[in-house]
């Protein structure tokens, strides 16, 4: 008689070869394109197809490309501003939705989800029409010239922050706020010392999301930016139209590195304080 072993425990599954292979394939699928992008940024070739040898030339070239640098710094400034504004707006909205019962609250909650599901192209056209209609000033000095792009980015990122923070707050024990008041703290002290620390992981996660959305947004930026404001994705698009050179790879690799570095910093901030301090 064939003797079968006991059914596998949940952790036993990772010991099966085919599951490991599946996991490996998933990672290859996810990261191979990025790895190739990074690899070919060091390729000593005018084109991006065949590996010719290692060089840092294209990093130097990208660093000397004035319009690429301008686009890059525009993107970073826009991302920073729209992230800060989105975190404040989204955090406050989440708090209001969590704390208060008011007429029209379900409508507000639904309206908050809308920018998440509306197709970006529609958002882009809508913002274009909106800015034209209200007569948003053009030709302002930098960085005010970025204001309409920042406004557009805030419009589609802060709902994400609100959703993330709202989910975080769902697990909050309101007795903590009452305990704080009971122990002598004012409303403001309670918010700063009890509620805000609880919201923090949600705010950081939401902020990261907002930053990523802003950094790589193409469609909405394309529709809202004036003729003389370039952001990194828009610039890369225009460069790629004339052939994807390793210069584009190099610039993208720098952006990836910055994003990863920011994520690591955010994760560090999010980690619970070590016990025994």
């Amino acid at each position: 008689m064939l003797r079968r072993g006991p059914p596998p425990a949940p952790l036993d599954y990772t010991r099966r070869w085919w599951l490991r292979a599946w996991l490996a394939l998933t990672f290859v699928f996810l990261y191979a394109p990025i790895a190739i992008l990074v690899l070919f940024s060091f390729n000593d070739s005018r084109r991006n197809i065949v590996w010719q040898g290692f060089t840092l030339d294209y990093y130097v070239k990208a660093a000397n490309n004035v319009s690429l640098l301008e686009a890059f710094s525009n993107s970073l400034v826009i991302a920073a501003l729209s992230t800060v504004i989105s975190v404040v707006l989204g955090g406050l909205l989440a708090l209001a939705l969590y704390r208060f019962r008011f007429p029209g609250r379900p409508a507000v909650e639904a309206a908050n989800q809308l920018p998440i599901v509306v197709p970006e192209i529609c958002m882009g056209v809508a913002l274009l029409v909106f800015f034209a209609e209200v007569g948003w000033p053009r030709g302002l000095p930098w960085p005010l010239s970025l204001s309409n792009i920042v406004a557009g980015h805030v419009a589609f990122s802060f709902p994400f922050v609100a959703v993330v923070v709202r989910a975080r707050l769902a697990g909050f024990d309101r007795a903590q706020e009452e305990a704080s008041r009971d122990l002598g703290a004012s409303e403001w002290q309670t918010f700063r010392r009890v509620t805000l620390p609880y919201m923090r992981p949600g705010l950081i996660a939401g902020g990261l999301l907002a930053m990523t959305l802003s950094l790589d947004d193409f469609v909405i930026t394309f529709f809202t930016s004036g003729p003389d404001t370039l952001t990194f994705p828009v610039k890369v698009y225009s460069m790629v139209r004339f052939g994807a050179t390793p210069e584009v790879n190099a610039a993208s690799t720098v952006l990836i590195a910055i994003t990863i570095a920011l994520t690591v910093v955010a994760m560090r901030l999010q980690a619970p304080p070590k016990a025994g301090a």
Partner: protein
Amino acid sequence: MAPPPIVRIEHVTKRFGDYPAVEDVSLDIAANELFALLGPSGCGKTTLLRMLAGFERPSAGRILIGGADMTTVPPNRRPVNMVFQSYAVFPHMTVADNVAYGLRVDGTPAGEIAPRVDAALEMVRLGGYKARMPEQLSGGQRQRVALARALVKRPKVLLLDEPLSALDRKLREDMQLELVRLQHEVGITFVMVTHDQEEALSMANRVAVMDAGRVLQVAAPRTLYENPTHRFVADFIGTMNSFDVEVRGVDGDRARVRHPLLGELEVARAAPHVIGGVLIVRPEKLRLDISGAAVAGEHLIDAVIEQVAYYGDLSFVFVRLDDGTRLQVSRYNVNRVDKGDPPPGTRCRVGVHPEDLLLVDDDG
């Protein structure tokens, strides 16, 4: 002259919309009392406690703490502190920071905070846990943190919302003794909300029994058990048997009543307001009589044993009287060599002493 009460609740009513959570409650709580608010869920006991803490504002009436009117004072300016049912320990702070919180927001000098925090943690036996995070503590330890955090502020009154409900049985019994010890040690008035009658009886000096927003009776545990004024109180605290009787006349604290099986007898009356009502008797005060030996002054009623529940130290014997009334009789297992409980179906008699009967308010 009696000292002035530390807490005075004057005709307090609290409505949520149309729903009256607390209705016209007046209570005095004396300094150094361990006072319990007891009642089923939804009776208004927690709302009353939250009004003492300042989280709810009375719709009518006044609340005085230490002689000062606190009715509209916000929670952070009241000389009371609370231990929450969920403990509400701050998860992002160490044990020591949790306990120091109330002192820090008050602007207590830093040099004073550390020794007071140490003393408070020592008092709840958590001296070695200062640097731990709440997630590293057990439920019982978290509760001790919540206690220390409240006591370190030296409140006039400590409020406890269902302090033992989240603990398992063994820990609950230990913590009951611990809370009583603490209360003696710190000499602070404790006001505790509970739905557990044993907890209230074993811990409190006085208990207020609440039902549907009203306080029915305020008394020492023994009085509540032996002299309940309302059928609800008798029912809620312990077990009781009841006889519907016809009241023939009242005279002071006695009443003459008539019952088809017991005949006419004179019994004690629980309170002057009791006029109509029911006769109650506790199961352990009834005697199961099989052999036929009468005890002086007893009334004997014929009955049939219906069911027996054996608990080791005692058995509950359920009997049915000729008129269909069911009674519960406690039978203590005092000898190791006993013949055991009589089987269901046995005819017997139940001995009732008139002094063990009490006429109470039939409030439904």
